[in-house]
């Protein structure tokens, strides 16, 4: 078991964003979190990364019990995060080269020249992109840079927070393909948040459906596609994601 979360709660100033959520993710698995805005799916992901005020419960990653928001150096290298909006998550005044250098410098990894070129190559960007600024890149290219930045420290787990929802459909397909390819090449474990059931079932083998801070149900993508769900809420979500029909309303 790579990630084991038990009865995790997160409270922001008295507001319970997450209440006793439990999930477990195997090594090499791709796990999805779906739900509407405010359901706590991003909060759960951020709690793992140490970016949310945890008020109860336990998080165990790679056999290491995490307490509070303190994370070991090994954890910070093994777990990397990719955020939703590539327009906001890259530094606007740093070149791609500089942004990729930063994690290497933090972790004291040498041989930066070769690693940067390799990371760019891995996400399908040529060496010509190395000295560009974010404003000179398209949305899809920026998200590729964000993925390269996560991959450059050779992590084992990627936390993906809506990695394609700011992108056009055709660009989304390219980024999803890239993420799958990278995962199979390096044997990575993914935890992916999305509001799009189609994307999650495409990328993940199992998923948890969340609503107002709680996990409604955990099921496999195959069961979801076959409409073998237990809760009404999951069924409603499924109907809604199939698009508008006069009957559905």
């Amino acid at each position: 078991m790579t990630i084991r979360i038990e009865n995790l709660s997160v409270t922001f100033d008295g507001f319970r964003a997450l209440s006793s959520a439990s999930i477990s993710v195997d090594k090499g698995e791709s796990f999805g979190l779906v739900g509407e805005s405010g359901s706590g799916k991003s909060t759960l992901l951020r709690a793992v990364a140490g970016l949310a005020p945890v008020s109860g419960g336990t998080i165990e990653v790679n056999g290491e019990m995490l307490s509070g928001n303190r994370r070991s150096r090994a954890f910070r290298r093994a777990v990397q995060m990719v955020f939703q909006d590539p327009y906001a998550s890259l530094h606007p005044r740093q070149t791609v080269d500089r942004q990729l250098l930063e994690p290497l410098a933090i972790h004291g990894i040498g041989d930066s020249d070769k690693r940067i070129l390799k990371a760019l190559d891995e996400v399908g960007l040529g060496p010509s992109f190395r000295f560009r600024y974010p404003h000179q890149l398209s949305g899809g290219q920026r998200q590729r840079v964000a993925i390269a930045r996560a991959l450059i420290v050779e992590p084992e787990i990627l936390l993906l927070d809506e990695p394609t929802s700011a992108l056009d459909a055709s660009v989304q397909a390219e980024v999803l393909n890239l993420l799958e390819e990278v995962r199979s090449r390096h044997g990575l474990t993914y935890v992916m948040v999305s509001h799009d059931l189609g994307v999650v079932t495409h990328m993940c083998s199992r998923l948890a459906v969340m609503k107002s801070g709680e996990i409604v149900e955990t099921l496999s993508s195959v069961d979801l596609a076959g409409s073998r769900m237990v809760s009404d809420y999951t069924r409603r979500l499924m109907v809604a994601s199939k698009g508008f029909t006069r009957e559905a309303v």
Partner: protein
Amino acid sequence: MMPLLTVRNLSVTYPTRTGLVEAVRGISFDLGRERLGIVGESGSGKSQTGRAIMGLTPPPGIVKADALSFSGIDLLKAGPATWRDMRGSRMAMILQDPKFSLNPVMTIGRQITETLRHHENVTKREAQRRALDMLEAVQIADPERVFGLYPHEVSGGMGQRAMIAMMLVCGPELLIADEPTSALDVTVQLEVLGILDRLVRDKGMGLVFISHDLRLVSSFCDRVLVMYAGRIVEELATADLGSATHPYTRGLLDCTPKIGESRHPLPVLERQKEWAA
């Protein structure tokens, strides 16, 4: 029958330091009392088309057309006073995110009555009654309470309903909806679309529905225009969506992952230079 809206060879250009940027490059279509979808990716010119029809192209943008008319009125020659009379009463527009398109310092009720009092000669009491009716028509359970709320006090779905109420309160003949549900959750999206669907049908309006989501548009509209790089590359009745011929339309349909389908890797859209020609 004369169409409600006629667009002939419409182009929108923006002068920039590096030359003219052509956002819309010569598109033509007619709209009757029907639902027309305009679909395309970011930068395809779909929103610029909607804005040009409403006369809302921001300076220094230049709108040119051989003809642009709305129920017999030549929009190319319309002055500010004509525009003021028409917008809000005969043609209306719903924007993407109610967080940015509602006035944050006015209550929802006041924003709706303002539209009414500007365009029609009604008493305060009458305006209030009609605003409440309209809030009820967009399925707001407690219209009296919502009437007195500020936009930050309501959810996204509620805000978008208030926006629809405001736009439809004068009974416009033409409604332009620019990504009206993209900022909303899927289940809320469905409710808002249901409301829009019913109102457009009951009032017999012409609707231009602009979206990046081809499947959503096709489930909602009668006819779809697919735009790419400022041009219409394909026009389809939604029933014929399955037999779309343009490779761009086909690519758009194919590249989204769907529940219960296993396609690894996903087909990727290969853009051809000649599509933009």
